[in-house]
């Protein structure tokens, strides 16, 4: 517990890793290559059991934007996020990520552009060591061992978890595991980061540190959360989702000030 709190302060920026003095001759591993945009139109999705989880969504997000997804339990936030990565495919409509339409041809490149962090870090950390886990994505991308090594190191440094490299994920505290889960996707050098409920289960100090980390990221950022204060602190734009559709989209401050809207969508 102790360590993790200190580290976040000493390595605050994911995009500006200050360890290992990366110069320009070196590939700067965490500067995303893609254009970081998202465009969704008429998105419908039905689960195999018949549940209509998404019912016509239109959405455009510019590169580098930071967007909070708000909405009640069961609104469709997680379902939407799984479309950005091609894990779910639209029943109708299209999803464009970094300029590519998500399809079987583009799926490999789409997954390289979109880093998805799951709510439960244990779902994401399945390798014997932290190092292996962070190396998993780059390895599947077919990078050279040298490049993999660089990616892993920079990603771990970015979240302040370099000293955990040789530890087993199961022996880490929740806060540490959340950080390593983030590193596993940072190592793939995505232009878009998607987090499902990053603050659940963290104590107030861990939550504050998470906010600082989110503020320091430069990638396009889409985060679902029930924590309105987190949305206010780190996300200029918010989207309210309810019953599979977008109920509101605008400046976070305005949305959070609209008490009627919040009440109507289970946010107050």
């Amino acid at each position, binding site marked *: 517990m102790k360590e993790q709190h200190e580290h976040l302060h000493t390595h605050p920026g994911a995009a500006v890793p200050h360890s290992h003095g990366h110069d320009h001759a070196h590939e700067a591993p965490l500067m995303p290559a893609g254009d970081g945009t998202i465009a969704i139109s008429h998105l419908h999705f039905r689960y195999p059991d018949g549940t209509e989880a998404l019912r016509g969504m239109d959405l455009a997000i510019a590169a580098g934007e930071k967007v909070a997804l708000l909405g009640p339990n069961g609104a469709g936030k997680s379902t939407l996020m799984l479309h950005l990565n091609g894990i779910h495919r639209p029943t109708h409509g299209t999803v464009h990520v970094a300029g590519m339409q998500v399809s079987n041809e583009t799926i490999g490149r789409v*997954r390289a552009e979109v880093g998805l962090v799951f709510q439960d870090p244990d779902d994401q950390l*399945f390798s014997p060591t932290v190092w292996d886990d962070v190396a*998993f994505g780059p390895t*599947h991308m077919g990078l050279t061992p040298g490049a993999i090594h660089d990616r892993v190191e920079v990603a771990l440094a970015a979240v302040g978890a370099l000293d955990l490299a040789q530890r087993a994920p199961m022996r880490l505290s929740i806060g540490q595991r959340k950080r390593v889960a983030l590193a596993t996707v940072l190592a793939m050098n995505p232009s878009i980061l998607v987090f499902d409920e990053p603050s659940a289960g963290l104590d107030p100090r861990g939550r504050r540190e998470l906010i600082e980390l989110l503020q320091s990221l430069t990638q396009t950022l889409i985060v679902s959360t029930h924590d309105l204060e987190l949305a206010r602190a780190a996300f200029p734009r918010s989207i309210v989702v309810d019953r599979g559709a977008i109920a509101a989209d605008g400046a976070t401050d305005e949305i959070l000030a609209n008490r009627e809207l919040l009440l109507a969508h289970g946010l107050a």
Partner: protein
Amino acid sequence: MIADPRSIGRDARAAVVTTIAFVTAVALLPPGSYLALILAWLLLAFAGALLGIGPGHLARRGLVALPFVVAAVPIVFLRSDELLWAGTIGPLSLQVSGAGLRIALTALMKAWISVQASVLLLALASPPSIVTALRRMRLPAVIATSAGLTIRYLEILRDEARRMLRARTARSASPVGDGRERIGGTISWRARTTGSLVGSLFLRAYSRAQRVEDAAASRGATGSLSIGTMPAADSRLTLKVFGVLLLVLIITLSGALLPRL
């Protein structure tokens, strides 16, 4: 600076082979080879000391095999050769066979020593590195991957099970007041409850497997899944294999040469 990933986890093949060879050599000793068994234990204790594990600790860990002694006890009384003692205790007429006693004692010592050998193996090599070593030794990839994931999720699922058991315990109260029928419910009700716990845990494990699958897919995994980096091959493997052969030779020869009791 951080260590190279390829140095994380050692090539555990030598450790695995040594353990298996040692256990086999011990198993091959004929009944009554107490001296050879003591020698084998001393070798083990020496190896333990090199790894910083005291002989007392090792010996205690070895006791986990003891409950199995029940299986070997009858033979002490049921063989009729080398009668050591015969008499009656209460209604029972008993006889103690020397040969039976020798078989039981030898089995026990072997079990006790072998357990300590696996304890040492774990001290030498982490579970994941043992799995990797087995993969190198041609363990099929399906088994290796599923064993690796079993080890990974073992504690998580046991923890879930523990919390569920705890929740059941917390509601296992006795009545206050009257109108009681049968405290604790019927046996079939209890069995149903336990079955439901098992079923719930299965559904949780199943949906976790699906999420892990999604998480792996979103990082580019397709179809087959290889988890964990292979550590560099041990450059002194051949040398170590010779060491192992020597060890086996010592134990086996001592079994043949040292007097048996």
